[in-house]
């Protein structure tokens, strides 16, 4: 059997994201203890753990919002070299603005609530240097459509939208520049179950259509299981187990993972 050029393939030997021995302390609290992770192009890595396990800190470090005490972080992109934790503030900002998208749990962190929804998406394009109004409008509309946001409301400010709609605006903003890496920090927390399902469907469709590399953090095992190819379980700042999603959920090895998987209300 031979592979033809038009057959999509996940076969690759080089990870897009490589983080090694990332540690971070906030005073006496050790938030991350030597966390390492690799994510391959088109793959979804789910990070799961209890509150305070360090998963959001790790995600913020991947978004270059935190500078760890030790460790390295590289992205295998043509114009991105070296340990990204060593970049200066300007280089970090430009990298995050153009190559990394993020959806926060709290939309207030990711959106300008009094600006229009399309303006929020346009902001990302403006940072990347787009200065044509018609192009901004068109690209914002397309990104909002892709995140299944009703475009007749594209000029409504997020402050007037529901939580689920705000998350869609965040998602549109994150994907507007077709980032190499999409980070999702508890994207469905606080949404009711039906809206959660819609947002998850959108994420899954986007991932399948665009093969976006994603890292998703959640304490909801259902969300992680729905979206992830591989899973990393964190506890007290450490990775206690990682592997393929089905493998981790069906045959958890670590006692903490077993406790998580079998936990029921």
């Amino acid at each position: 059997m031979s592979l033809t050029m038009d057959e999509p393939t996940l076969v690759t030997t080089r990870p897009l994201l490589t983080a090694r021995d990332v540690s971070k302390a906030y005073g006496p609290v050790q938030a991350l203890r030597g966390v390492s992770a690799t994510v391959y192009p088109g793959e979804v890595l789910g990070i799961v753990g209890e509150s305070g396990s360090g998963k959001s800190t790790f995600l913020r470090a991947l978004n270059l919002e935190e500078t760890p005490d030790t460790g390295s972080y590289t992205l295998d992109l043509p114009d991105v070299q070296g340990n990204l934790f060593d970049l200066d503030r300007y280089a970090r900002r430009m990298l995050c603005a153009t190559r990394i998208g993020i959806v926060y749990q709290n939309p207030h962190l990711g959106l300008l609530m009094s600006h229009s929804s399309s303006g929020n998406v346009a902001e990302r394009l403006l940072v990347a240097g787009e200065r044509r109004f018609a192009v901004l409008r068109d690209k914002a509309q397309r990104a909002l459509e892709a995140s299944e946001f009703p475009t007749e409301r594209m000029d409504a400010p997020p402050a007037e939208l529901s939580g689920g709609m705000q998350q869609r605006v965040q998602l549109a903003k994150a994907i507007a520049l077709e980032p190499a890496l999409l980070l999702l920090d508890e994207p469905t927390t606080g949404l009711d179950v039906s809206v959660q399902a819609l947002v998850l469907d959108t994420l899954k469709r986007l991932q399948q259509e665009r093969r976006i590399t994603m890292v998703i953090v959640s304490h909801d095992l259902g969300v992680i299981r729905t979206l992830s190819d591989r899973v990393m379980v964190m506890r007290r700042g450490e990775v206690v187990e990682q592997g393929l999603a089905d493998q981790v959920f069906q045959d958890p090895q670590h006692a903490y993972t077993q406790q998580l998987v079998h936990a029921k209300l």
Partner: protein
Amino acid sequence: MTLQSLTRAWEPMSYGFLDASAKREIRRKMLKAIAVPGCQVPYASREVPMARGWGTGGLQISCTLINPRTRIKVIDQGADDSVNAASIRKFLARVSGAPTTNDALEADLIQSRHRVPEEVLREDQVLVLQVPNPEPLRPVQPNMSIARQMHADADYGRMWLQLYEQIVRSGRVMQGASYPSLVNGRFVMTPSPIPRWDVPKLHMARHLTILSAGREKRLHVVPPFTRVEPLVFDDVPYRVEDHGGLTCQRSGARGYFMNEIPQDDGSSIHEVSDSDLGVKTIRRREGEAVAIGATWYENGEMTS
């Protein structure tokens, strides 16, 4: 040996209310601001006998530049005869012995609140603009520490976002005054709250413009022959108001920028935005030999 033999006789060395060290500091900051056009330079804004917000920033710059031979003109929203303009003009003359004028062509130093004179200024003239808020990023970034970082990174995307929002909401750019402008291709400044039509007058102008905010303790400068480019989208051009067909109700001047004065019956009348130009027009019509210089805007077109 007497005390008199050891000291110099008194002579009027210091002009303009401020002490020599205060003026020296402001001069240094002005030179720094000239070297980095559009960059806000902090200075130790002194107390002057005027309330903050009434032009203390401009007054300190004028007091620093003035000497007994400087001919001064003071403008308040285009008018030379308002109480504020008259008071500042009188104060400057009193503390320096400098002669005053209402004629923009005769003046060496023009302190102005929110207007650039209609007549084109020369290389030897200095325009001092009073600025209430020198930070263009304040509406989009209330945290001034982050705003400073944004200036350092030339991170002005959110300024365009403001324009985007105005077009989305109103169909056009609604920024009528204080239009954010890029100076020398590097720093975005808020050019005092001068009207939108006055911004092109700063672009590659022959005169030096110093913008000073006394309350905010910052000044910035547009040196002569410096690019001042209003922020625009590539496909939405910058437009000034079209006043080419309007006539000044008081002077009959036509083809200049006008202030709109709403009337009780809902209509509007217009007056030329530079009161001295109106006065000159009237004097010329009455037969006086009055020199009216070239103007920035004539018959609906920018000339310079």
